[in-house]
């Protein structure tokens, strides 16, 4: 364990610490009149006890000063092992995510509201955010990072377990409409970047949530292959099917044109990468839920993470010490000779 650090939250109070020396100054306030001092024999025990009490008084005042100055041990990171994974959420922030997720076979026209969401249909983006926020709330040991992508990748937060932050970032995704373009290749690179130069502490995965695919150029394919393999990253793709799209898996009777659709081409690229890869096609809210619960079920290997041991406040302890000291002083005062018999 690291050496114990101590810190003060209100160091200004320490300026009053020298006042704790007051009890040690030689003077007598509690004295008794006596006719002739020379008659009284010297009493070394009393003298020693007197000094002891002065020291106690000084210690009491010092303890109060330390308490007022807010003596504490700052929060320290400690290594913990839990069950979970390091997950980079890679969220599509394109405008198509504002459209409602339609049950298979239905026509968008039947549901078309003014723009985006209609009253009774949740948009794809909102649904994905709701499920992701439940997902992270149920997996406290996971380290989550978040990257949004549109025309450029927008890394929002790096690995954290702070629910406030995770929920704040997920909530933010629901404010304002989506952006116009998507560049999935750079989005994936930015997500993989989070693992670069990072010690391996548990299973690593990128959870890509998007409603479209992409044709990646050879150069980008090469860069992605290198960085995903080097960092041993698994990939989960939750593909939210747009109305009218054919889906990522080939079906009998698909034409050649369908085979080269961006989502198919991306799916084939991912399959050929040689990394752990799973694709989910979410056609309806239930499927999306299933996909996310699968991730929660499968990614439960031990994971090492740092937890912040909360700061420990010593002020009350200081006051306790001071109170005990005062008690001693007071008891001594009660026992003191006040009048000569």
């Amino acid at each position: 364990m690291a050496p114990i650090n101590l810190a003060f939250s209100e160091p200004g109070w320490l300026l009053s610490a020298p006042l704790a020396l007051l009890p040690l100054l030689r003077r007598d306030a509690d004295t008794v009149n006596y006719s002739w001092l020379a008659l009284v024999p010297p009493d070394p025990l009393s003298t020693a006890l007197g000094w002891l009490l002065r020291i106690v008084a000084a210690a009491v005042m010092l303890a109060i000063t330390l308490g007022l100055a807010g003596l504490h041990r700052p929060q320290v990171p400690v290594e913990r092992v839990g069950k979970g994974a390091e997950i980079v959420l890679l969220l599509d922030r394109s405008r198509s995510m504002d459209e409602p997720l339609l049950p298979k076979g239905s026509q968008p026209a039947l549901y078309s509201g003014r723009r985006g969401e209609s009253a009774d249909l949740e948009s794809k983006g909102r649904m994905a955010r709701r499920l992701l926020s439940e997902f992270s709330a149920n997996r406290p040991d996971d380290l989550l990072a978040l990257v949004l992508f549109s025309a450029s990748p927008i890394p929002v937060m790096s690995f954290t377990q702070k629910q406030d932050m995770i929920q704040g970032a997920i909530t933010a995704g629901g404010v304002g409409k989506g952006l116009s373009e998507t560049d999935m290749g750079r989005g994936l690179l930015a997500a993989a970047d989070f693992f670069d130069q990072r010690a391996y502490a548990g299973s690593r995965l990128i959870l890509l949530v998007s409603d479209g695919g992409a044709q990646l150029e050879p150069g980008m394919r090469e860069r992605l292959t290198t960085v995903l393999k080097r960092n041993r990253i698994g990939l989960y793709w939750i593909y939210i099917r747009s109305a009218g799209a054919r889906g990522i898996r080939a079906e009998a009777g698909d034409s050649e044109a369908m085979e080269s659709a961006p989502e198919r081409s991306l799916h084939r690229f991912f399959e050929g990468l040689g990394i752990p890869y799973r694709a989910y096609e979410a056609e309806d809210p239930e499927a999306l839920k299933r996909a996310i619960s699968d991730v929660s079920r499968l990614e439960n290997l031990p994971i090492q993470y740092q937890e912040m041991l909360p700061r420990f406040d010593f002020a009350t302890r200081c006051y306790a010490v001071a109170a005990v000291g005062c008690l001693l002083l007071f008891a001594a005062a009660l026992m003191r000779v006040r009048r000569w018999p």
Partner: protein
Amino acid sequence: MSLADRFAGLRDALRGLSMRSRLTGVAMLLLLIALFEPHWKTTRDAFDFVVTLDVTQSMNVMDYEIDGKETSRLNYAKHTLRQVLPALPCGSRIGWSIFTEYRVLLLVAPIEVCDNYHELLDTLDRIDGRMAWANASEVAKGVFWSMRSVKELGGSHGVLFITDGHESPPLNPVLRPVLDAKSEKGQGYTYMDQTTWQNKPVYDGKPGDVRGLIVGVGGETLKPIPKLDPEGHPMGYWGADEVMQIDVITAGRTGSAAGEKMVDEGGKAVATMKPTMTEHLSSLKDAYLAGFAREVELGYHRLSDPAGLLRAMTAPEFARPAPYQADVRVLLASIAFILLVIAHVPALLRIPRARSLGRQAGKRFSRT
């Protein structure tokens, strides 16, 4: 011994106590109470903001210095925010958002600053020009968008919009941003009034319904704007022929009729703008931002140092009473301390005659 006798004994004992011992006794009682960690439920001021940073390329102009090193407007703004964050009272909430093109994108909804300090810093550190999704900078529309975002969040957060005010493409004076007081729709995403020109920035809320500050960054002299590729690699500076020198109205549209002019609703030609040929250079548009802020009833603050920004952000008008548990221990312990100081300062106590006697005798006499 009866109970009454015992009490009498105690009373006797207390009566005979010296002043110092009595003070020590009171201090002891106060400290004992402090051990129960009493709290006083009260409120204190907290300040909630959605901070929007302009990440357009003009923000990369090197106008500032940090520790003697030249730095960009964006970096200086981030540097300032880094100092402001820990100085905000606990309970305050901060969210991050970025501005490019004509809109803002919320990155993190407002969260409490003390608990989430490191996380908020991490996101702030990540904000840079590479996040920009387009090369345009319609500042007025961006401010309106940030005001709408705040309303959409439903909280009472203020907006804090940090920009150099560089409109690109430039804004025709007749298309100055206006508050559309007639329209009280306040719903959906209609941010442009469709009946007027498409490019006129219009806010569909009521003036003053969102509070906040526009913060101006940048220097007074025009400087070239560094040109960066999407991944942030420098590519020299923007040239005069690479940016729009005139506004979109003056530019007109490509139509079949040559020299086609835009007209207003009355059929009169819209005043065109003379190109300044300085649109590829950038400085802080201080007067523009201040005037615009006045019109939309936001405050204006010109960024000079962290302390100034903190003062502007913690102005009473932005305060929200947040529940706070005041620590009573400090009060109790400080009184106890003062009592002990009094008890041990000889000058403050009545000095009995015996003291001088003791001195005369040349030796000290303890009664313990």
